């Protein structure tokens, strides 16, 4: 980790702002690993990690110092985190925005598909809806802003891009990301343990079907 700031987040949480997106998951892992009894949850996002604290813990004033020590230790001796087995998703590249993405990127459609399906992505964080993972590792040539006005309904399984991320809509919902294709994989299933296929730190590979 190259640097961070601790920012206030009300009376029982602290927000850690990282210098680089790539520092988010290492910071999350460093804060989770010790299993501090007063830490209720560690929630990663794009550049920040929220540490939720037990408001009744007597030592709450000490926790920012503890957070600093965890991050410093992780910076000094980065551990090779166990990389879980990747999740493989078969993708039919027939999305409504595939052609326009190709045009705006100045690439043939086949090249958009190649560049989108080539990287090994990592789930950096989840949000928007249960099981929606923000996958980092998108080819910079495919970075485009989201739609100015979201679609009222995006089909479940839609594989989409926005900004620096790609992701898969777990269920039909409104959405403003650019649709490249679809997968039949079930992203969130309450009868599965854990229910979310994609969790922070999970590697993901996409395969054109």
């Amino acid at each position, binding site marked *: 980790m*190259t*640097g*961070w*700031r*601790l*920012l*206030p*987040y*009300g*009376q*029982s*949480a*602290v*927000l850690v*702002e990282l*210098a680089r997106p790539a520092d988010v998951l290492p910071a999350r892992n460093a804060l989770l690993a010790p299993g501090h009894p007063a830490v*209720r*949850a*560690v*929630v*990663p*996002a*794009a*550049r*920040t*990690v*929220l540490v*939720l*604290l037990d*408001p009744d813990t007597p030592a*709450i*004033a000490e*926790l*920012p110092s503890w957070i*600093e020590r965890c*991050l*410093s230790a992780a*910076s000094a001796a980065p551990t090779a985190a166990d990389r879980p087995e990747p999740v493989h998703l078969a993708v039919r590249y027939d999305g409504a925005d595939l052609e326009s993405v190709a045009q705006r990127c100045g690439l043939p459609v086949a090249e958009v598909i190649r560049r989108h399906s080539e990287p090994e992505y990592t789930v950096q*964080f*989840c*949000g*928007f*809806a*249960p*099981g*929606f*993972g*923000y996958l980092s590792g998108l080819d910079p040539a495919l970075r485009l802003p989201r739609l100015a006005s979201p679609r009222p309904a995006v089909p479940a399984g839609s594989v989409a891009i926005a*900004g*620096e991320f790609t992701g898969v809509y777990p269920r039909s919902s409104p959405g403003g990301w650019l649709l490249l294709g679809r997968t039949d994989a079930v992203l969130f299933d*309450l009868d599965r343990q*854990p*229910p*979310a296929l994609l*969790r*922070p730190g999970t590697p993901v590979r996409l395969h054109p079907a």
Partner: protein
Amino acid sequence: MAAMIEVLASGPLATVQDLGRPGLAELGVSRSGAADRAALRLANRLVGNDESAAGVEITLGGLVVRLGTAATVACTGARCPLSGHSGGWNAALSCPAGTVLAFGSPATGLRSYLAVRGGLAVPAVLGSRATDTLSGLGPAVLAPGHRLPLGTATAGPPGTGGDAGDTRDRLPSDVTTLRLAAGPRADWFSLAPLHEAAWQVLPDSDRIGTRLAGPALRARPGFGRRIAELPSEPTLPGAVQVPPDGRPIVLGPDAPVTGGYPVVGVLPAADLDLLAQVRPGAVLRFVSAPIGPRSATAGRPR
């Protein structure tokens, strides 16, 4: 007769709520749970339940239920005229089988809670029986004909609930003052209006967020671009977000777990409970609350 209660009418919005699904934010699952957690806890204590048992959250009254069995119940939160039992609010009420409890409109406050001894035993989803109105997790929004089984989530005999008269008398008046602790992006805005203005609660407020009308909050000079480019950050119920129109939104229990609008403040838990009782059209004021752990630190230079 069956150990259940039957919904005869739901009013504007009635849902099953407990203390929600904390700790699943990293899967994208919101906390959900009772909007006024202190009121649900009190109702559960009154009937001798575990504080986390599931009850009914009633919005602006209107709920009518029939008890399928003799049961001990308690009503807390916004005080509704109650027919079907001569007993009062914030107390354990013994009801014979077949009792029909009908909640009128509360004179003040917004949300009321009905706890039944044993708790509501609808199936738990991810460890909670709460209805998340955004994601759809948990039981359906209550409607006439729904039957809610009763469980065994008791912790002891029905009691007084301890401090029954405490925070529940802190229902909102014409102007409700809430404490606000600093959020991570407080220094990006000129926040004087936030603390000086009277903010009116808008009618499109719900369990996802409380929307406020008042003077638009403006970015401090030089921060507009950072606000526009802010990537998604984790959020919590009680966080005060400022969208591009400058009109703050206080996130509620069903809000998404990440958001792209800057958070300028966070309500302490007790004040978030109080906000859950403020009706659309009512007026809020904010005062500064001390920060818990510590204010922003330098950390490592970057």
